[in-house]
């Protein structure tokens, strides 16, 4: 599985003008991204995804935001944004990116030299594919209630417990894990970060079939799993704060208009196919959704501007997640409303992936749940942004 990590990229990307950089990225994506995988209806598995993943790795573009001394491109925020915009514009599938966006930054900020040297190159070259062991059956919205336990025994932690909603765990060979290392501390204060080889004896992965009849999420069971103590990241019992800091990426990512924009474009195609496109009442519904989408883009732009200026985002970024995911749902609700009996079909209409109202509808359902349910996001807004008590 190992590939060369001598990047093919030779241009000095940081020195390029923004528009030249954009053109450079766009051109390369168009030349290299497999066209049959544009805007896939479901989250891709590793076996579908990996050719593109390795292309990015070879080019040295897997980790555009990592500093150059750790093997990244060291792009400034403004260029990272352009990079992301181009990836989204082309409809590239989301990769198995937990190593890139979560583990990398975690180790760069909190890892030991040994951890950095061991793990970062293997993320960069695609050898390690990571999954995220956070949620548990009784710790969903209340993540800090997690109970998967790690007890030190000699040089190892012994891990017992269960994780759930672990995205693409069946594709991963490493897992970064929140575990409880002090049962007597307050619930946020006894949590640590462990890096676990998925090949360790005692780990069982069980895919969960979801409403799409797809197995994107998994349960992961840990039965006396021995993890070397050197794989603990940062300070023991201080894992919660690190985990929270990593979530800021997720909140802006989940607030990006891309899912709504993609669904919205499909809504038009469906309306044309169903013969309602010209109807004044449909046009009004469509116009409302369109303006919601455009205003979401404007609001998203104000947060992207902050990133561009190098500012860190506050809790108010939760606004994007709430509005985007609910807009995504409203767009797909409208799809079903106009689809006639096609609202009940399992597969895309007429074999056309662009006419897939049920797929889009089902895909939109968990958007208001994952990444911190919208109820949790509204709690965050009311308490951390508006300062409401209790």
């Amino acid at each position, binding site marked *: 599985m190992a590939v060369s990590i001598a990047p093919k990229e030779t241009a000095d990307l940081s020195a390029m003008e923004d528009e030249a950089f954009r053109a450079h990225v766009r051109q390369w994506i168009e030349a290299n991204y497999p066209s049959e995988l544009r805007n896939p209806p479901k989250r891709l598995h590793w076996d579908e995804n990996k050719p593109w993943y390795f292309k990015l790795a070879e080019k040295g573009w897997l980790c555009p935001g990592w500093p150059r001394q750790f093997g990244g491109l060291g792009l400034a925020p403004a260029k990272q944004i352009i990079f992301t915009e181009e990836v989204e514009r082309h409809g590239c599938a989301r990769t198995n990116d937990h190593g890139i966006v979560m583990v990398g930054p975690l180790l760069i900020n909190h890892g030991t030299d040994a951890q950095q040297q061991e793990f970062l190159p293997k993320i960069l070259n695609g050898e390690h594919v990571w999954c995220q062991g956070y949620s548990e059956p*009784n710790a969903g919205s209340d993540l800090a209630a997690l109970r998967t336990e790690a007890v030190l025994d000699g040089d190892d932690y012994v891990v017992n417990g269960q994780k759930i909603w672990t995205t693409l765990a069946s594709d991963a060979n490493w897992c970064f894990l929140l575990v409880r290392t002090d049962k007597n501390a307050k619930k946020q204060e006894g949590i640590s970060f462990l890096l676990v080889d998925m090949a360790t004896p005692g780990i069982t992965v069980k895919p*969960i079939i979801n409403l799409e009849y797809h197995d994107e999420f998994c349960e992961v069971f840990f039965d006396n799993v021995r993890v070397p103590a050197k794989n603990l990241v940062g300070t023991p019992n201080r894992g919660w704060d690190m985990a929270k800091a990593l979530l800021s990426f997720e909140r802006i990512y989940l607030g990006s208009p891309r899912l709504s924009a993609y669904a919205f474009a499909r809504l038009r195609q469906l309306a044309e196919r169903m013969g309602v496109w010209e109807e004044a009442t449909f046009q009004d519904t469509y116009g409302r959704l369109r303006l919601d989408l455009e205003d979401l883009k404007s609001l998203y732009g104000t947060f992207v501007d902050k990133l561009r200026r190098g500012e860190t985002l506050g809790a108010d970024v939760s606004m994007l997640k709430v509005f985007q995911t609910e807009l995504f749902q409203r767009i797909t609700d409208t799809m079903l409303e*106009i689809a*006639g*009996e096609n*609202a*009940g079909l399992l597969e895309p209409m007429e074999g056309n992936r662009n006419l897939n109202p049920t797929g889009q509808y089902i895909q939109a359902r968990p958007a208001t749940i994952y990444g911190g349910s919208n109820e949790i996001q*509204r709690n965050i807004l009311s308490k951390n942004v508006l300062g409401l008590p209790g």
Partner: protein
Amino acid sequence: MSQALDDRSESIRMIRDSAGAVAPRDGDTKRVRALRFVEPGFSRDVFAEMGALGWIGLAAPEAAGGSGLGMSEAVALTEELGAGLAPEPLIPAMLSARLLAAAEDKALLGGLLDGSKVVLTAWQEKADSIAVPGTGDAPRMFIPQAGGADAFLLPVREGNRIALVALEAAGSDLVLEKTMDGGFVGTLRADLSRGSRIADDVGAVVEQAIDEAALATAGHMLGLMEKAFELTLGYLKTRQQFGRIIGTFQSLQHRAADLKIHVSLTRAAVESAAAVLDDGATGAVRQAAVSKAKHRAVESGMYVLRQCIQLHGGIGYTDEYDVGLYLRRGMVIMNQYGAAALHRRRFMALAPEDVE
């Protein structure tokens, strides 16, 4: 209206009880799950049982071998079957029974009423429609659970009349597609020369039969939303997060209150429409009542079903947990016999207004 309902309460109660035996409201979903994506997507045996219980001919006159009951009983029944997720094509079968009774075709009707034969009507030529063009050579689309049919009925336009042609299913050009709930919907390209003509004009009765099917489908949706809401309430009362039963969170309580309102509005709309039809309403009055009920069932039903998923959190998105079965069935039936917008438009075009 309410007096009539009172009088019927006994027959409605009996229908509900008997439904419980076939599609238990509080039973498990093993039977339903086992039938998914296995053609034809339902159980012939259970369909036969439905016939034996008199359900297929529920609203057909007793003289024709039916039970001689009305829409109040029919919506109570389809509600129960919705709550129990029964995948058998009872509503399409009732529609066919109406046509066969009008056609006085005792042979086909007998087999259909006792549940030994599955007879489905292939009337639909495009999505989201309640009109019967009867174009002879047009593909007939969206036939629910069509893979299990023994025979099809085809309305065929002849001038101002709609003749009825019966066709053996065996040997027909039938293409099946999977539906979200594990069933199969069919497109039939019929060779009419293989069929036999069994009635000269069923134009009026087919229109009424589709109205009744639309109302029965509203009843099915009512059963789905009510049962999904019941599951959700149970979840809210037991699931803990942050050291509390989540049903103590006020934002979830208020949403549950809203869902209750939508379930109640739907029940009121469906049952009052059934009473209107049972009072013998015809024409615009019947159509307006049906459209009002189907509109409400779709709008409120899909709202309730998707909120039930949301209130379950992650587990609601799994196939393993039952609440998703209700959403997927809802997707399949929501636009059958007309989407909400179609019925809203028809209601507005038909229903006279009391302008003061």
